[in-house]
């Protein structure tokens, strides 16, 4: 199976070689700009030159974090990734379980929407990070960060599902009714499949926000470390090469998870169409 995956990957690269080349060029340009700025700071011997380390030093730190165990935490970057992924997963699944039914409800029934809207509109603008001190104390050190991620993912997901339900093309509803659908068949065979792409958009957006929250969330609660914990701790100690390495890891993880989510979304759409 690894063979098939590898061949599939190579085929993807071969098909989209232009995009990969463009991506590589843009990243190279960024690294060059970074190197120039870093050199400029170091030459000038500015007090904050250490805050922008050379790209090569960050690369070395990145490698070291995966290979060497930190003497104090006894963890490698792999463990940190695992801890953060676990939190994101919990928060994500909880958000999914809450937002999808609620969104379908609020999108379909006017009363549900009228009841839910005020609370949603009240809480939504508050950045999840603002809740951190409260959640940590009230929910505990483990559940606090998960709750932060939950909040970050929940609202985009909810709003996208509601929007999806509301956007169902009236023509499709009419067609289904003239084909004999009753209310529940209408919901399952027309509304649900129609909402799936909106749901997937919500998931992509939500996951992105979830990763943004994880750094601040792990600043306060960090069983097993986590990439956010790593970034914070390195920054506090002034070991900025490692801090940037952690940021790169988060960036890559973000791309990876949203990529997986999109691929899953495509699979799901296919499956739903075959009901």
């Amino acid at each position, binding site marked *: 199976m690894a063979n098939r995956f590898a061949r599939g990957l190579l085929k993807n690269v071969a098909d989209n070689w232009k995009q990969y080349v463009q991506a590589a060029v843009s990243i190279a340009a960024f690294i060059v700009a970074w190197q120039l700025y870093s050199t400029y700071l170091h030459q000038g011997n500015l*007090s*904050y*030159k*250490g*805050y922008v380390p050379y790209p090569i030093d960050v690369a070395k730190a990145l490698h070291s974090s995966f290979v060497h165990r*930190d*003497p*104090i*935490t*006894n*963890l490698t970057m792999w*463990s940190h990734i695992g*801890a953060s992924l676990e939190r994101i997963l919990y928060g994500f699944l909880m958000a999914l379980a809450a937002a999808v039914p609620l969104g379908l409800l609020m999108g379909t029934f006017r009363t549900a929407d009228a009841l839910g809207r005020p609370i949603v509109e009240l809480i939504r603008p508050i950045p999840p990070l603002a809740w951190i*001190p409260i959640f*940590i*104390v*009230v929910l*505990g*050190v483990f559940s*606090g960060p998960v709750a932060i991620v939950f909040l970050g993912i929940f609202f985009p997901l909810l709003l996208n599902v509601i929007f999806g339900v509301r956007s169902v093309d009236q023509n499709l509803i009419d067609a289904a009714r003239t084909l004999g659908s009753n209310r529940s068949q209408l919901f399952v065979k027309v509304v649900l499949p129609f909402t799936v792409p909106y749901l997937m958009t919500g998931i992509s957006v939500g996951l992105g926000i979830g990763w943004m929250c994880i750094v601040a969330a792990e*600043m*306060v*609660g*960090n*069983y*097993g*470390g986590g990439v956010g*914990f790593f970034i*914070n*701790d390195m*920054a*506090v*100690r*002034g*070991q*900025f*090469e490692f801090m940037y390495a952690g940021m790169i890891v988060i960036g890559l993880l973000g791309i990876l998870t949203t990529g997986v989510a999109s691929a899953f979304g495509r699979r799901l759409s296919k499956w739903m169409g075959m009901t």
Partner: protein
Amino acid sequence: MEKKMMYAIAVVAVVVVASVAAMYVLTNSDKGPKYPVYFITMPVSSMKGSLGSGGIDGFVAWEPFDSEAIIDGTGTALEWSGEIMANHPCCVVVASTDYLAKDLGGGLTGADIARRFIFAHMGATEWMADALNHENGANYTLLVNLGMQFTNKSKAVVVSSFEHLKYSYAMDANFIAGITNFTETFVNTGVITPDKLTQGGYDNVSDFVSRYADDNYMTIAPNMWYGSSILNPNNPVRLGFLKADIHELAQWVAQNKTVGGGSKSMLEWWGVAVTNASSTGGYSNGPEEMDKFAAGDVDIGYLGAAPAIQKHLNAGVHTVILAGANTEGSAIIVKAGSGIKSIDGLQNKTIAVPSTGSIQYVLLKAAVVDAGLTLELKT
């Protein structure tokens, strides 16, 4: 007859020695498997709340956060830092080397002003130590009030804090030994990247300590006298300190007119104008203050020795230590009523520290190792 006596004494002696040995062995043998003590990191401001709600079983913080938790009944002190490492250095006075080299016009440099500042700091520190020695005196009452003003905490908390720290500026043998010990620990545990010592131009740890703790500013210079007019009216020293951190009370005292005799504060007597570097009434933690040093926002600041060392070596921030500010003044706090009486009782419990590079972590580690246990990150 004598032979029998001798045998009897010999038997008794053997029995006594044997039973003493047996008792010694029994009381010191392993009472069972040992569990690790766990730690996590958390901002100091969240620690008390988390202790109260049961999220953590204990924390290590600097005063007044410890006394605050004790006074309001949330926690009790398991060990004060002086019991773990007697006289350990804690907060220090740091100057930006860029500021020291700065030309302020009229033949004055930042170094000249810094020297006078340090003298005001030394005067204030001595005044505080003296006031604390005479608890019935008027100075003591004044000091308590100043402490309450600066920290915004209750009188009980301030009084308790005073009992568990010492205000001292001397960078004597004890201070140097403490700083050296911290630095070596940081290098050994990877908190300071080993290459950074040589990259910073230091041969080794003791070379670093001897150059980074610069006591030259504590000697009087030719044209300095107590009672000059303000020398830097247009360039007040941008002073940094940590919000409500009672370790750093010296700068508050040095700015107070009553302490200075009525018309001028000690700083004004030395001709130094100061202004608050932070726009929010102080920084939240030492690492943040070092970031401000790096950005050029702070000329002279009070902060913990750990960030002062770490960010200078790891990130090359242009700073140097000019004096001590206090020793001791931290504690391991556990939940009130938890029944934990010794470090042994921390097995399987989770203790919060501000960061893995903090002095509080070093203290916790030392206490745990002393008790024959291990300290691990909670997973």
